[in-house]
């Protein structure tokens, strides 16, 4: 469980916000989708789509027309025999819409081709993440927290259908079979779910519906059984993102944000901006100066015409090189202790170090740079506020949108749309882009609905970066090759300090700064960890796999350095430290077997290995790398993953492939540098992303398991960097300790 989840679940101060920590079983909650709609339309209706889009979107997404059987807030069945499943989580590409629908459809014995999906709005009582106690998506937790809840929802619906059929046919319920959305009896009686739906609605919900055992799963774990529900709409242009929302009289706003961190506006002259055809308003908002127009281009032209004087003194000293120098000093000094060496066991002599292996690692700020820049539509009307956006943390967005509008929560309706990627960007407690959109809507007095659109530069310059980090590590090795001591200093901003999640900090330590060092997959009782958490004017934020983005690189390249110093094979060295960790051992052995670890490689090529646990999922990777003329090419990556029950194997493979490419792009290129308080990289020309010609071949192997599932959206990221870095060293290249590679003179071939 991610510390974020645990903190939310455990913190009493969140009770006001939170749903019960254990949500009522769906069957007993008695709340249906229809109730939800009646209470203010929390479920995203697609009625606002233009007709052709609606028709196309209903390929697989979109609710059945008339639900006649709604046993709970997650599933409903129409007379048309369509099953509608509500996704309480945010879909940003990771495939949870398909995954959650699979959980329900399997227990329901539904025909997958008759399954439709829709997205829940903000309603913490009905749709909380059971691991957080609030509604939100993060920490690769969607499937993990919903596994029993969604299956129970499906099993409940099935039991009520069976009960209705038994009553209608006068046969024992135990004799009725279900499959492909059809009820049958040996007597020849047969009814579709749609035909039995109205009768099922009159049945009492079972208190404890029986769930399938893994050998009875009909969809979960089956190849090709559950194609992604969102593929058709994303391949024909009908998928609806925030930018695609159409409302009558919709205006577009862009904001002239401060050019540097901490900058304050001194004055502005909007006279030229107001003359741009199409510009309707120029208004000051807390975030900057908003230019509102009838279309996006006019808004952008209006912004260009603004004359603003900024006072940038506050951030003038913010400089990446200076920060790294400061962080290097900090990381070498005693700080707040996050790990204390265990006392030596009685009668067992402490290992005596005869060799020291040390390194200092530097990690830059990273922008998330999802393909869809941030945007939000806000509409104040009739004493209410409606917002449309990729609301990844609806509970926060709901609170902060209401606060910005000065309205009570029950007057605020969130429409949570799919988003064009997030990687953590939309999971923020500041709800920055939604609050800004509401501020603009307020500033124009709700005259019309307004879409706030960030340009790429706005998005990339907004801060909310993966924080810079420096690790200073000294490890003492004994003659035996045993680790005798491990001193580990970390300097990194706390991600949660100053936010509603600050309660995660325990004894001065933000666990997201050190996760992966402590706790570690390895048995390291000698670990002595010291943390420094400086504060800066740049807001930090989690970035796909959070602290593991840097800790895995440090730990797993150190493992290779130590193995080399000890004269041992990197795989064998790791396995010896993982004797009490069967799942990490399992993925390591599997990836070693599949990659032919230790096989002869052509000159200039080598394999590198790494393993890491992230949010309960273990991933091991072997990268095959070729070095030529000082250039790097990652030819192939083998990836073994243990995420418990594999609900959708193809989605798991896709996430591993995507994590690998995402991580490789960051390894090669990603850095936001600060100069005089301004971010240097503002678009993809300078903040480069991995392109197709750099993508390695990927082979994914899933460990068969009946353990409860854990997530896959992030855990494929951490091992990639160190696996590649280790391969480069084994191919005769440099040991890179300053990321990205481009900074260390290593370029991709």
């Amino acid at each position, binding site marked *: 469980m991610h510390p974020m989840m645990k903190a939310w679940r455990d913190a009493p101060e969140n009770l006001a916000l939170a749903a019960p920590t254990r949500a009522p079983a769906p069957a007993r909650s008695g709340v249906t989708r229809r109730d939800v709609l009646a209470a203010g339309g929390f479920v995203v209706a697609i009625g606002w789509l233009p007709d052709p889009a609606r028709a196309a979107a209903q390929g697989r997404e979109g609710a059945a027309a008339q639900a006649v059987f709604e046993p709970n807030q997650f599933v409903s069945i129409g007379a048309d025999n369509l099953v509608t499943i509500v996704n309480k989580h945010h879909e*940003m*590409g990771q*495939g949870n819409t398909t995954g959650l629908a699979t959980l329900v459809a399997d227990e329901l014995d539904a025909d997958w081709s008759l399954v439709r999906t829709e997205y829940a709005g903000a309603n913490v009582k009905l749709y909380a993440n059971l691991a957080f106690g609030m509604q939100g998506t993060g920490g690769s937790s969607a499937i993990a927290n919903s596994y029993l809840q969604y299956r129970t929802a499906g099993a409940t619906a099935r039991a009520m259908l069976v009960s209705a059929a038994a009553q209608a046919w006068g046969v024992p319920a135990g004799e009725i079979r279900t499959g492909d959305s059809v009820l049958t009896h040996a007597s020849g009686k047969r009814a579709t779910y749609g035909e039995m739906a109205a009768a099922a609605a009159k049945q009492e919900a079972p208190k404890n519906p029986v769930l399938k055992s893994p050998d009875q799963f009909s969809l979960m774990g089956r190849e090709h059984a559950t*194609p*992604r529900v*969102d*593929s058709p*709409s*994303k*391949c*024909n*242009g*009908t*998928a609806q*993102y925030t*930018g*695609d929302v*159409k409302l009558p009289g919709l205006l*577009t706003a862009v904001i002239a944000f401060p050019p540097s961190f901490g900058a304050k506006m001194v004055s502005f002259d909007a006279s030229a901006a107001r003359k741009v*055809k199409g510009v309707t308003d120029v208004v000051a908002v807390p975030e900057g100066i908003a230019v509102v127009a009838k*279309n*996006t*281009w*006019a808004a952008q*032209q209006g912004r260009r015409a603004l004359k603003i004087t900024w006072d940038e003194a506050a951030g003038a000293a913010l400089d990446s090189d200076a920060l790294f120098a400061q962080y290097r000093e900090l990381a070498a000094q005693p700080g707040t202790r996050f790990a204390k060496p265990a006392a030596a066991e009685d009668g067992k002599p402490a290992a005596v170090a005869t060799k020291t292996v040390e390194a200092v690692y530097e990690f830059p700020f990273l922008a998330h*740079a*999802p*393909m*869809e*820049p941030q945007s939000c539509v806000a509409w104040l009307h009739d004493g209410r506020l409606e917002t449309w956006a990729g609301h990844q943390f609806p509970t926060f967005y709901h609170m902060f949108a209401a606060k910005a509008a000065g309205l009570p929560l029950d007057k605020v309706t969130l429409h949570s749309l*799919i*988003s*064009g*990627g*997030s*990687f953590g960007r939309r999971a923020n407690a500041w709800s920055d882009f939604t609050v800004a959109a509401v501020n603009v809507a307020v500033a124009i007095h709700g005259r019309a609905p307004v879409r706030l*659109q960030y340009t*790429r*530069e706005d998005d990339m310059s907004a801060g909310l970066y993966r924080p810079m980090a420096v690790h200073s590590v000294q490890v003492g090795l004994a003659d035996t090759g045993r680790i005798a001591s491990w001193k580990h200093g970390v300097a990194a901003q706390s991600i949660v300090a100053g936010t509603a999640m600050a309660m995660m900090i325990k004894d001065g330590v933000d666990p997201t700064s050190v996760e992966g060092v402590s706790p570690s997959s390895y048995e390291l009782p000698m670990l002595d960890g010291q943390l420094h958490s400086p504060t800066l004017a740049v807001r930090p934020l989690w970035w796909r796999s959070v602290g593991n983005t840097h800790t895995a690189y440090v730990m797993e390249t150190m493992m290779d350095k130590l193995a080399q110093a000890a004269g041992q094979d990197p795989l064998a060295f790791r396995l010896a430290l993982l004797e009490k960790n069967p799942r990490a051992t399992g993925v390591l052995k599997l990836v070693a077997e599949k990659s032919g670890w230790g096989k002869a490689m052509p000159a200039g090529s080598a394999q590198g290995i790494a393993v890491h646990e992230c949010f309960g999922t273990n991933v091991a990777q072997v990268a095959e790398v070729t070095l030529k003329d000082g250039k790097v090419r990652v030819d192939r990556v083998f990836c073994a993953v243990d995420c418990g029950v594999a609900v959708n194997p*193809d*989605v798991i493979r*896709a*996430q591993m*492939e*995507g*994590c*690998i*490419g*995402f991580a*490789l792009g960051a390894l090669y290129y990603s850095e936001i540098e600060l100069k005089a308080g301004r971010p240097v990289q503002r*678009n*993809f*020309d300078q903040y480069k*992303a*991995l*392109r*197709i*010609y750099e*993508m390695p071949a*990927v082979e994914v192997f899933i460990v068969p398991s009946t353990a409860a599932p854990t997530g896959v959206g992030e855990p494929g990221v951490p091992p990639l960097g160190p696996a590649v870095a280790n391969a480069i060293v084994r191919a005769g290249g440099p040991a890179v300790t300053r990321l990205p590679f481009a900074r260390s003179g290593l370029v991709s071939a």
Partner: protein
Amino acid sequence: MPVVSLHVNGHSHQVDADPQTPLLWVLRDEIGLTGTKFGCGVAQCGACTVHVDGQTMRSCVAPVAAIAGRQVTTIEGLTSHAAKAVQKAWVDLDVVQCGYCQSGQIMSATVLLEQNPKPSDEDIDQAMAGNICRCATYVRIRAAIHAASAQLTA
């Protein structure tokens, strides 16, 4: 403002717009074709890729005045055999993740296959180099182009 005459997906549109307005915003804001996406605004990411007279074009930097009288095709208007094969392969292989770049990817892949029904990996690298996918669905994009090619040349 001058009226610009546009031909999009076989339909004529008279658009009242600043001639410098990028085609992207005319498509999205004026004509209502929102399948073409805004990603970077500087022709770096390819999310805005459309076809103009059968060639790929980054609509985020193409002034609408320069497009007047030319044939524009967006993701909503794809009809060619190659396009249908590409879209089918994309769905068959579940290429998409967040999906935001995929209109542009499909537009680029379609022109590639219209001009070269049997592309090599190097051809694919070259044709698709301008389209970023932050979800890094590149393994499947490549596989889907090969699958569409196989369907077209079968």
